[in-house]
């Protein structure tokens, strides 16, 4: 029976991220898996409380499937990554507002080759925003 008490993200060290894919498709005790990953057993038990997959037998002993655990570690790694938002045409990142904004009064200045410099104003704070664009005159130009 699987037990997932708390599904919040855990802090997984780089060492564990590297070693976890090497876990074998078998049932480990917490001590064995802690030894294989080179982490303290208390840390591992903390991860189990935070949603790491495990099961208990009729004697209430904890068993951890190596492959399931490595999948969970990988999911924790991906959960730490912040969602990205690629800049669309006419958008730039305002350093003052610390946000993506639509550029106003934009003007394009060629830099070199296909690279151009797009300069405009932030609609929120009125500050100057800049963006490098690859091919001037294409979809990067804001409409209007």
């Amino acid at each position: 029976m699987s037990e997932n008490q708390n599904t919040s993200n855990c802090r997984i060290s780089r060492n564990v991220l590297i070693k976890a894919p090497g876990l074998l498709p078998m049932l480990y005790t917490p001590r064995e898996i802690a030894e294989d990953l080179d982490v303290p057993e208390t840390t591992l038990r903390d991860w189990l409380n935070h949603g790491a997959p495990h099961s208990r037998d009729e004697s209430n002993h904890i068993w951890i499937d190596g492959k399931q655990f490595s999948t969970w570690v990988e999911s924790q790694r991906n959960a730490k990554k912040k969602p990205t938002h690629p800049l669309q045409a006419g958008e730039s990142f305002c350093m003052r507002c610390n946000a993506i904004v639509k550029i106003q009064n934009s003007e394009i200045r060629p830099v070199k080759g296909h690279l151009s410099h797009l300069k405009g104003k932030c609609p929120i704070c009125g500050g100057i925003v800049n963006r490098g664009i690859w091919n001037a005159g294409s979809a990067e130009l804001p409409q209007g």
Partner: protein
Amino acid sequence: MLDRQNYLKVKLFLKYSRVVHGRSSLQISNDFEHLKALLLWAGSQPLRSAHAFNTSLSDFLFQNIEKRLDQAELQSILNTNQRFLLWVKAMFPVEFQNIRLSWIMKISAISEGKEVII
């Protein structure tokens, strides 16, 4: 699922290597990586019947290990596994009585006609 007894024997061998032979932690780590191939080869079957497995260990390494191995790496894996099997036969003579020494000595030989990336 792999046989846990096989895994425990591998762990015991690694501990023995560290304590008795004084192998370094890096060597132990390498040995464990090599012995994982043996555990995967055995699967859910006990190692005491390894001589009766359908495929040989070297064939298994050629077929199932995704990472392409060069000859030296393959030989190193086979040598580690041979060392382990010799140890396990010495330590558990009754359980491993069906495994013959001659079979263990042949395990490190790469089968004829196998393509090896150099």
